[in-house]
């Protein structure tokens, strides 16, 4: 680049940041095409054999998706989190195994971007060199209880690691692992450290991989483990200062949890697509399934669930940049709500597809039964639903603090499709506990007011009233080390209300706000949320679902998808 053409490149570079998502999608190609990067029949075949998708990963590496895992400041392309999220969604729509296997490097690397320091250069080099980096948090028998970590890191001139990390995504195939280890015998939050272990820079005899675990879904993924027996790494491979491991991990999770939502959103794309194709391609009682009122409602409900997941993913990708200090809560709301919504969507669509939901080995079928199993991975790893609900319960105190006014118009502005974050977020703004919960959640009543009197306003107001009740109940809830099921239930309701705020905000900021399609989408999404909250029964929501079903069927006939992000890639 010369000085002279510099400014020109700058102008072109901004739209390019989004066009790249479109290009990536085109690169991946049509999964029905055996020559594409991730053909469905191949995915199903490898899944059955529990084989790693070597070819697909190599081609994605060649394309260079990993460049969007590294912030610009460290030599990568990452500015806007949504860009890699949309690319991971594009993979997940085709095959979650490939998405999980590639995307985990982002999880393994993010700690370094948060702590900064000299480690960033080593981490960036690894990632840009197609790592892969795995995320070594959990240990056998300890599950999500990270404070109980038994792997030790003896820190001196070098850092000597002892212990086993299991089950870890890419533990065997990965070149490196970011390892959480105990560096002090003293109890308390400063007893753990985070260390980058590059297998190329460690005596191979001090490492042993643990066998691949048979998984329910993503059967081809390398879910295995790594045993470290006096594995010595250079002291500069510490990620952050000694003793700051747990804090770095907790902050990392605030960014990685949103990054898992596109896995579920891609799964939802696949499932909704399968349901629409089924409805258009099959007949029942002599008529196309798509003509049956019950089928249209079932489809509309599925599409609504998919739109909710997409709206939350999008809104949270914006809040990561604009409300970084609230991610402790927002990331847990998203990590609970998105996978559980898509799990629900899968369970609802399964009987609709009947036997087709189960079978494979027939050309074109089989993707559904795979994605139905695969999607469970999102809700279980890197903080399962119980962990995330518990995080929300822990924020009851901040959520219920007297209101700090939020201008909903500011939020809507931030959600506009053409509004782009200024750049990579400032990790120093990450907090372990928020001050006032989530501004997006607090903005729900204001967002509802902006809706005016459209068809979506009714369910929106009911949900806003429910939030009042739930917040009042959360204020009364006892503070317990082990929260009661009642508190978990309140947390789940708060997450659903948060979903409503995301859905409203995203539609209000959309290019077709107030249009018929926008109204139909939002009404169906909000009525579905109201049903899940128990505010109205399912059959009373079937009319709005049926209208959305019609919209989706029409779009499918035209080769399109119903989405709240239509044209996002093309935005200036």
């Amino acid at each position, binding site marked *: 680049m010369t000085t002279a053409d510099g400014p020109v490149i700058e102008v072109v570079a901004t739209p390019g940041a989004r066009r790249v998502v479109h290009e990536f999608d085109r690169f991946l190609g049509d999964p029905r095409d055996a020559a594409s990067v991730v053909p469905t029949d191949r995915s199903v075949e490898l899944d059955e054999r529990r084989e790693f998708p070597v070819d697909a990963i190599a081609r994605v590496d060649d394309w260079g998706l990993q460049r969007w895992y590294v912030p610009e400041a460290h030599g990568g392309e990452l500015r806007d989190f949504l860009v890699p999220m949309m690319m991971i969604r594009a993979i997940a729509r085709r095959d979650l195994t490939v998405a999980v296997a590639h995307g985990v490097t982002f999880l393994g690397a993010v700690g370094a971007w948060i702590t900064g320091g000299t480690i960033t250069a080593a981490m960036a080099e690894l990632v840009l060199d197609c790592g892969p980096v795995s995320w070594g948090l959990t240990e056998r028998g300890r599950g999500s209880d990270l404070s109980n970590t038994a792997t030790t890191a003896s820190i001196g001139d070098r850092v000597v690691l002892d212990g086993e990390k299991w089950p870890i995504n890419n533990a065997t195939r990965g070149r490196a692992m970011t390892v959480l280890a105990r560096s002090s015998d003293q109890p308390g939050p400063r007893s753990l450290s985070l260390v980058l272990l590059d297998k190329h820079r460690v005596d191979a005899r001090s490492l042993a991989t643990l066998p691949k675990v048979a998984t329910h879904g993503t059967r081809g993924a390398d879910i295995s483990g790594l045993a470290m027996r006096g594995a010595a790494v250079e002291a500069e491979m510490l990620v952050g200062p000694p003793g700051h491991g747990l804090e770095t991990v907790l902050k990392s999770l605030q960014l990685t949890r949103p990054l898992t939502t596109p896995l579920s959103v891609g799964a939802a794309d696949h499932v909704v697509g399968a349901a629409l194709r089924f409805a258009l391609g099959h007949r029942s009682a002599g008529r196309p399934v798509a003509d049956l009122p019950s089928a249209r409602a079932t489809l509309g409900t599925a599409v609504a669930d998919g739109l909710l997941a997409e709206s939350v993913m999008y809104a949270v990708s914006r809040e990561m940049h604009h409300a970084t200090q609230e991610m402790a809560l927002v990331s847990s709301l998203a990590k609970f709500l998105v996978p559980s919504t898509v799990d629900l969507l899968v369970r609802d669509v*399964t009987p609709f597809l009947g036997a087709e939901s189960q079978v494979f080995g027939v050309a074109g079928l089989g993707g559904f039964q795979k994605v139905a199993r695969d999607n469970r991975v999102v809700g279980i790893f890197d903080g399962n639903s119980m962990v995330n609900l518990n995080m929300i319960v822990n924020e009851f105190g901040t959520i219920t603090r007297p209101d700090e006014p939020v201008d909903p118009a500011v939020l809507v502005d931030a959600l506009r499709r053409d509004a782009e974050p200024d750049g990579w977020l400032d990790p120093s703004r990450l907090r372990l506990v928020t001050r006032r919960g989530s501004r997006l959640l607090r903005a729900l009543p204001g967002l509802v007011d902006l809706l005016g009197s459209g068809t979506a306003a009714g369910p929106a107001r009911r949900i806003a009233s429910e939030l009042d009740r739930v917040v009042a109940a959360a204020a009364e809830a006892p503070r317990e080390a082990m929260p009661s099921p009642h508190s978990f239930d309140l947390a789940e309701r708060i997450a659903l209300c948060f979903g409503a705020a995301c859905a409203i905000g995203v539609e209000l900021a959309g290019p077709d706000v107030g249009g018929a399609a926008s109204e139909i989408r939002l009404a169906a999404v909000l009525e579905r949320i109201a049903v899940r909250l128990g505010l109205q029964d399912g059959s009373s929501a079937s009319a709005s679902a049926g209208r959305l079903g019609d919209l989706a069927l029409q779009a499918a006939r035209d080769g399109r998808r119903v989405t709240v992000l239509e044209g996002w890639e093309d935005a200036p």
Partner: protein
Amino acid sequence: MSLDRAEPATGPREPDDLDLLFGDPREPGPFDYATIVADDEARRVSGTASTLLDEWDAAADLVPAELGGRWVSTEDLVRRWRPVFRRDPSLGMAHGLTTFGAALHVWTAGDEAQRTDVARRLLRGERIASGLHDLDGGGLADDCVADLYGDRWLVRGAVPLVDEADRAESMLILARTASGPGSRSRSLLLWHADAATRPLVDTSERVQTGGLRARRIAAAEFHGLPVPVDRTIGIRGTAAKTARTASQVGRAVIPALAVATVDASLGLAVRYGAERSLYGGSVLDLPQSRALLAGAVADMLVADAFSTVVVRALHVAPKGCRVLTVGSQIVVMQLLSAAMQDLSVLFGSTFYARVAPYDVFEKFLRDLAALAVPDGGGTAAFAPMLPDLPAWLDRTRESVEVDPALFRLGDPLEPLAFDRLASRAGTGDPLGAALRDPVVRAAFAVGGPELGVLERIAEAFEAARHELAALSPEQTGADASPTTLSLAHRLTLALAAAAFAGVCAEAEAASITADPLIREACLRRIEDRLAGRVGPLEPHLVERLAAFAEDRTDRGIRLTLSARDEAPPTRATEGGTI
């Protein structure tokens, strides 16, 4: 084995024989959980278990006693087969239930010669393949056509999903035998494969499934297959009616068997929850984990009561079971699926990344999902019950009493009268009146919260019934609105409560259903579903259910209703350990 078996048809076998024969699957052995998981991965069933089933004369259970088998009480049959479903549902399907489902059409509509012939074949160990899509499902392919030439049909075309296609000695073929629309255009043909005709059926295109992996499904392509006209099952053109009649037995039996899979899963969850430590305690020390377990236990108990009552209804009220079995199959499988979903959250990563000895739970979850898939695709699951629902409800409008024999679990039953099963509304609803039955209500303490829940469910039942009885034929056809389908769902949920309440009323004092907290919790789960959202149970209800599950598991007793609280000393080492 032969038709002139020496022992009486009712036989000396005790229901739990298979538990003893198979042994404790947690202990190393030829049919232990580790082997079951490995076999599942390899898409096969245990050879050892298959041999044991043969020695146990499993085939005799598939044949009515009057035809030389030992099937008298369907409830006994379910109890005898539950040990299989506590270990490997794939084995249960492959080694019996698939053939059972196909043979039902012969018992229901076949003539004397056909019934005798099929009985003889089954008793010597033969199998019958059949399509996964039955006529109830709706999504019928029209690709299989049979034309009559003299005294035989010539079958051409294909059936997409046939279970046991390449292994069974016979196949039940649903074929179009007349042109034109309508239900009278199809017939059921029974093909007995032999060297001459086998080459005319291509079953080489195998289809695999995510659950019940050992199932051998294939597409069957017929290239001018001759089937003698006297192997038409039932009157020509009546396949739809035959399937509606015959399928109700399978619709009752499969969910009742699936209860055992969930029962085994609950036992695993209790053990996992006690052994696995988390946050300084065990998983089951966490209130939310206990609540998940408790909800799953309650859902399983309701599913057990409802499915068993429906199985008994096949004998006690055969003419009222068509509508009932369509609804109960869906609701029971929904309850069981919900329980498995809750348990999968409790197991967490141990479910997803399988860890022995709990890895079999992951298989159970997939198998149950496969069992829960209704036969046909495309229409909402309750649609097949709608056309007959108004008449079914109307015919019992005045009735306030129900036959207590429905609820006396374990009481002997007369042989199933296939000729009395109805293909339509029949004699009406045998069960709903239990919600208002004075005897049932008298068993609930006056003023107790459980009676309050029961009364509210009874009101919901009346409201749904009132609306459904008034529906016109246009409203119950293919164009049925989601609202109508949802009413059918609500009605069936209330019927589940009716079954549970009836079982409570007739249970012995020692039964778990005599416990007022258990009663309240189980009915609450139904009430929540009627309201559209399953919320958390009150802490004292959670505690009671969880304690029940822990206590039974500790003592090696199953959680199902048929298990007695005091394990018989001779079987102290088996049974509920699974």
